């Protein structure tokens, strides 16, 4: 219900305010073809612009929250988010590279998607160097690969044309739903759906994995396979989100924490609820982004400005994140 209300709210605010009734009629007019007396331009704003933006926001929020939550369970650490294996920094670099190569953002989503997945794969390879892949080695591999891609991104910014390319790179890496390209929608949505469904199928096993590898194995879990599936799910969900909305921080970290206030720690309830909360959160943030000032504020800025203080509050409340 709340999701639906915010969905409608999100579609009604903007440069051209619309009443909720108009929105519902506009959607019906497009779907049924019956004329409900809504201006064709209004129908176009609702369907081609705001509907995609709103639904994308909801999906991106859900995907980021679900993968962040899954990674917190997988790494047994409430302070990690989906970026820990490098998907975000890889995607950020990929987008910047495409902006530099093609002088435009047309290929940025595709590059972001591929480089995001590539970065996670590389983290995995690094973790495998010493034989057995452990959680510690994964974090280490992720840290190394992330920092390499961040440095490469800085390098690209340094060599980019400051008047044109640099601005796009910076803007892209702050995340935004302002210009969702409909050509990206199918791949991005498919990737997010695939990732989220995979994570939802593994919620119970994520619980067991969070008991530690040896205990999970003793209880009969194929640790390597399960971990691979969870990483795959979280990576596809995040990569799909990043390629439609750019890199957005904090959602994957703080939404699971907010969700824990309502449904406790059992991932069977926590992950679905985080998805719901993530969807609501990102839609609300997006509404603020486009209404607070005349110009759009990038999403990534708002999630941090609101998410940061909240996270400090969490740290205080949980004494440094220990779940004692």
């Amino acid at each position, binding site marked *: 219900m709340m999701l639906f209300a915010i969905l409608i709210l999100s579609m009604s605010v903007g440069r051209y305010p619309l009443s909720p009734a108009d929105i519902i009629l506009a959607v019906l007019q497009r779907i049924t073809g019956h004329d409900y007396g809504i201006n064709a331009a209004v129908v176009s704003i609702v369907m081609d612009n705001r509907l995609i933006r709103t639904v994308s926001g909801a999906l991106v929020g859900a995907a980021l929250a679900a993968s962040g939550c899954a990674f917190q369970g997988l790494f*047994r650490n409430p302070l990690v988010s989906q970026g820990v294996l490098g998907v975000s920094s890889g995607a950020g670099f990929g987008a910047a590279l495409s902006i530099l190569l093609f002088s435009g953002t047309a290929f940025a989503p595709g590059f972001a998607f591929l480089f995001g997945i590539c970065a996670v794969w590389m983290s995995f390879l690094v973790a495998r160097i010493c034989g057995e892949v452990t959680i510690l080695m994964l974090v280490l591999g992720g840290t190394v690969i992330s920092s390499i891609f961040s440095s490469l991104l800085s390098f690209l910014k340094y060599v980019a044309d400051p008047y044109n390319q640099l601005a796009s790179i910076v803007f892209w890496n702050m995340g935004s739903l302002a210009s969702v390209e409909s050509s990206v929608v199918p791949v991005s949505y498919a990737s997010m759906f695939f990732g989220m469904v995979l994570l939802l199928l593994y919620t119970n096993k994520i619980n*067991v994995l969070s008991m530690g590898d040896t205990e999970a*194995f*003793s*209880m009969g879990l*194929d640790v390597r396979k399960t971990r691979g599936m969870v990483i795959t799910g979280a990576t596809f969900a995040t990569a799909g989100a990043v390629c439609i909305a750019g890199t957005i921080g904090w959602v994957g970290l703080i939404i699971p924490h907010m969700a824990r206030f309502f449904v*406790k720690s059992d991932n069977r309830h926590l992950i679905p609820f985080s998805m719901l909360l993530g969807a609501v959160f990102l839609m609300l943030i997006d509404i603020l982004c486009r209404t607070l000032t005349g110009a759009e504020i990038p999403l990534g800025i708002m999630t941090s400005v609101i998410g940061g203080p909240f996270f400090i509050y969490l740290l205080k409340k949980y004494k440094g994140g220990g*779940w004692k």
Partner: protein
Amino acid sequence: MSVLKIEKLSFSYGSKKIFSDISFQVRQGEMFCLAGPNGCGKSTLLHCISGHLKYQSGEVLINDQSIRLHSPGKLADRMAYVPQNHIRSFPYQVLDVVAMGQIRSPASLLSKNEKEDLALSALKEVGISHLAEEEYTTLSGGELQLVLLARALCQNSDILILDEPAAHLDIQHTHRIMNLLFRFSREKGKSVVISTHDFNHPLQFEDMGANVKMALMDHGKLSGVSSPKSLLSPNSLEQMYQVKSRIVKVSDSPERHFIATWSE
């Protein structure tokens, strides 16, 4: 018949040899106590037997089949492991933690309710069903150990492996855990393998009439497998630990007690 058979097992971390040429057998309904100085390789041996670490040579057989041929699920059907140290993660409910012992049985075989019933009966069995709704991260060390034991029980396997199950426990919880293990072997025919630093554990099991064997491990070798009675001699223990000790009986009680003396 031997349920668990260890044959000439060897393990090393890189070039550092941890133990070698270890052989023993555990029968159905039998208790097996593994003792030895800190760092002698007990925990590593238990990790190898449980399949967490891959041994380099020798074999671990369950009903004459190598554990290498078992999938993780199949292995968990036969054997449950209780760790020495559990690092608590997220505040799950106790009942959910115990029900994790049933993770390998697909939803098609056991419904959610059946799993919860199994978990609840395991909690009853170890006597902490009143904790079912608690967050497991808030429990005391003794209660946590009982929860982990219940989780292993929920796994419904014939072999239980416990790495120092009574470490850090007070006498009440030690008493409870040890009596439960004794009952599991006696009444359910489970094979129980534990490591321990307290020689009173094997002695008490023996005095209770348990079917118990023990082995002393030192510098990665087993120095014989036998009954506690014949293995625990003050002489051999002094050689191993450089500490003088005695086994005594108090007045007319038939129970034996192990005492290590602190005087040089």
